[in-house]
């Protein structure tokens, strides 16, 4: 059955795409758990859910990149085993991925005919004809001879959509297409989707922004932890006013968080006892409100970073962190969290504003100081890019543990390395932090993510930390290690060490933090005191339910 045949059945009542009981397991993760959903012709089906809810896995199954462990895929009523992206394209399913797939040095036309030629010669005339056809459907003005890399992000995305539709006449899958778009770009995208719907195309649209789902979607499915936790049918979507829809979706997305929290709290006690039996309980329980907070230690005033092609930048960020405080930073990934962390650590110079740190009783400007000086002053940073940035994978655990103290005694004397000192320090740290490694001389890149994180944690919290910035401290870690990391953050806070915790897991922030700042497009859109209603208010801020 070809794409044309699939589409021509539009009036037969058979859904375009049916997923029945789709299950996909990765080592340690149940990414998709018995997911059933349908995509109809001429309909925009929105998928909502937090990071790690299983959206990406579902997309890669639909685009033929991943084959599910169990479940049935029917395209136009016929069961199919989609086992390659080529196969998906042949069935008429085109996908626009989050990352760019255009070759930046080639022209638009070259990019489009690149993957779609059968012979040796490129058929430009045929390509131009198809491009015109698709551009007119989309209502877009496209210069076929423009170099892809010179186009703005909005324009590039139009080309990505045309590329996905080049063969695919049945369905279009868009993975977070609005995340890098300007508001005007989002508006244009919405009108393009309207036009495409009119041709009978089925569209799957993934987004983090609630209002987009409500405005553009005909049907909304919410995923959580790999399962479908709620669906809003077209009739309901059309008949309910957007205010109530928002409430409804936020409830589906975050509503049961309180119950989950109590589960985790139990786990937390177990794990805490088994990991560090001889340590006294510091008293900072889940909920995190029981924090004795001291004087301010770090102040950010109107800190800004210019936006760039790949980043929203930062816009006039004001923050004050007190001694012993654990401040959370929540938000959809890629909204300025990394920039904030790097600005604090000194890895990225700020364009304007000021950062000051209390040191020896007085606030001093640290905006112009480098990573090294800030580290010495007790400002530490655990990067979320553990393997790529936080450690040198081809070097030993021992060396990585002293990576930020190179040249300093006792590990170096007169700039000569003291192997015995480095070795002893490594052995003691490995024991204290329970880093599972064959030995101090093992290359750290060979360890698991959790053990690398323990090593980084050990390094960054060694020798008088005063304020530690954690970027996704427990991302990808198993529950035991996660809880050990959280416990460490909590204990240090009890000892007066402040923390800035950036996390995608709201539950984690609610567990640890006293206050939670919510970022969106490089701005702090609100700071929420942790309390009974906090998850709801953070959820609202995160998905843009409140106007700025």
């Amino acid at each position, binding site marked *: 059955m070809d794409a044309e045949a699939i589409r021509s059945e539009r009036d037969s009542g058979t859904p375009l795409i049916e997923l029945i009981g789709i299950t996909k397991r990765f080592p340690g993760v149940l990414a998709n758990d018995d997911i059933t959903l349908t995509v109809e012709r001429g309909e925009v089906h929105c998928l909502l859910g937090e990071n790690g809810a299983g959206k990406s896995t579902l997309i890669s199954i639909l685009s033929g990149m991943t084959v599910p462990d169990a479940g049935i895929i029917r395209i136009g009523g016929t069961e199919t085993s989609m086992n390659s992206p080529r196969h998906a394209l042949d069935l008429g399913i085109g996908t626009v991925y989050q990352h760019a797939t255009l070759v930046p040095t080639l022209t638009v036309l070259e990019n489009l005919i690149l993957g779609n030629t059968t012979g040796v010669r490129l058929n430009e005339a045929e390509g131009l004809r198809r491009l015109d056809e698709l551009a007119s459907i989309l209502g877009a003005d496209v210069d076929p001879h423009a170099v892809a890399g010179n186009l703005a992000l909005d324009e590039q995305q139009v080309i990505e959509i045309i590329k996905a539709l080049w063969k695919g006449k049945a369905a279009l899958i868009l993975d977070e297409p609005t995340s890098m778009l300007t508001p005007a770009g989002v508006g244009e995208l919405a009108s393009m989707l309207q036009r495409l719907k009119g041709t009978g195309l089925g569209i799957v649209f993934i987004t983090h922004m609630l209002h987009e789902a409500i405005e553009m979607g005909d049907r909304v499915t919410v995923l959580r932890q790999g399962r479908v936790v709620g669906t809003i049918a077209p009739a309901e979507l059309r008949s309910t006013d957007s205010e109530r829809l928002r409430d409804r979706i936020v409830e589906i997305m975050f509503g049961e968080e309180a119950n989950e929290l109590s589960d985790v709290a139990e786990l937390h006690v177990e794990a805490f006892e088994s990991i560090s039996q001889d340590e006294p309980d510091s008293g900072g329980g889940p909920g995190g409100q029981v924090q004795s907070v001291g004087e301010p230690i770090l102040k950010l005033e109107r800190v800004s970073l210019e936006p760039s092609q790949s980043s929203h930048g930062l816009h006039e960020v004001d923050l004050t962190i007190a001694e012993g405080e654990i401040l959370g930073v929540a938000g959809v990934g890629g909204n300025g969290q990394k920039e904030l962390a790097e600005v604090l650590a000194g890895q990225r110079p700020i364009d304007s504003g000021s950062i000051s740190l209390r040191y020896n009783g007085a606030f001093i400007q640290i905006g112009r100081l480098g990573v090294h*000086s800030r580290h010495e002053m007790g400002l530490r940073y655990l990067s979320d890019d553990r393997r790529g940035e936080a450690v040198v994978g081809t070097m030993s655990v*021992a060396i990585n543990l002293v990576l930020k103290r190179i040249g300093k005694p006792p590990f170096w004397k007169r700039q000569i390395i003291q192997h015995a000192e480095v070795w002893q320090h490594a052995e003691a740290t490995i024991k204290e932090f329970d880093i599972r490694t064959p030995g101090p001389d093992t290359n750290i890149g060979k360890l698991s993510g959790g053990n690398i994180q323990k090593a980084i944690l050990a390094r960054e919290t060694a020798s008088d930390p005063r304020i530690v910035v954690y970027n996704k401290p427990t991302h990808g870690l198993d529950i035991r290690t996660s809880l050990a990391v959280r416990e460490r953050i909590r204990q240090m806070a009890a000892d007066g060490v402040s923390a800035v915790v950036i996390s995608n897991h709201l539950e984690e922030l609610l567990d640890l933090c006293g206050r939670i700042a919510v970022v969106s497009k490089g701005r702090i859109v609100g700071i929420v005191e942790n309390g009974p209603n906090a998850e709801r208010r953070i959820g609202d801020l995160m998905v843009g339910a409140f106007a700025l």
Partner: protein
Amino acid sequence: MKPTDTVPPEMTDEHTVVSDGLAGGPSNADDSPGISLGSSRMEKIRRSMLLTILPLVAAMVVGGLFLLALGRDPLAFYATMIHRAIISPSGLQETLIRMAPLLLISAGLIVAFSAGIWNLGGDGQFMLGAALVGGLAASSAEVMPRGLMLVLMLLIAGTLGAVWTIIPALMKARYGINEIITTLMMSFIGVNLASLLVKVMFLDDRPGIQTPRTPVLDVADRLPTLFGTRVHSGVIIGVIAVIGVHIMMTRTSLGLRLKILGANVKAAHHAGLGVSKLTVATFLLSGMFMGLAGGVEVLGVQGFVRADWNPSFGLVAVPLVFLARMNGWVTIAFVFLLSVLSIGGELATRDAGLPNQFGLLIVALVLLFMTVAEYFESRRLRGERTVWATMADRILSKGDAAGE
């Protein structure tokens, strides 16, 4: 492309392989041969056999086929080669003399490559150092004592070599511009500028000189020779430079910083190592050794610089330093091997009535086969199947499919 991404991908690959065993930690920080005992010692011997002797034999066999095709006796050719390069005292001296510039260039390359910086402009840095020394040495010798003159000349050569890397260094550190291109371009300029200096500024304009060249430095004013031989003390400078660099890379904080820069630029940035400063320092240090090599070659061997002289040592040393995995001791051994091949090759080709380039052919074959051996060995260490086994499998399974 972001500045940090400009390291070519093949570079990072090389480094993953290279950093194995070189990276710190008390047990493996010392790579000097002969320290490990027992089975690992056997393993090391087996490895070095596999990675040097085998390629050498393979290169000889292929070179032998060429010789046969040219109507020469390969065995006689190789016998002459070995005799002229190692066994005859004068040949051995020539070999050792040839090592001096190669050792200094290798020292410069070890620094650069360990830090992940491709300084391929060695020839330009070398020639400028050489030309300036060639132009100034003879006249300086008339006004100052020999010792002072030699030290001054070496300082000038080293400084000029370093200065010639400043433009690529700043372009790399500030804008992330690929140094492969910039150092190569600066090298072209450097080589031609050196020639220009010789023809215009430093020309020895006495009558009867055919090719333009600088004034000749008196033999008595050149680098002191060793133990009554013709081997000059530049060889010692070269050995000290390579060992010094090796110790710096394995023992000092600067060495570790450079290796981190080479292994993972993002981590270097994250650890606050001052990536820009380290990058510039690496270029300067590397260029200094290149310039020094030029100075030593003029002060020890040539005594003058001819406008058309360019031995192109820079690029020959590149594969060699990589094959030695930036290890100083192995580099010294490889430089010796290369010198034997190049001196022996030059003399044997002359005897056999072949063009000089034939010697270079043998050198190139050895480097090529060493690279191939290195590739197979790293595959074996990673536990991958050999190409041959995979190929055999394919052929067999195809046969099965056809039979069904």
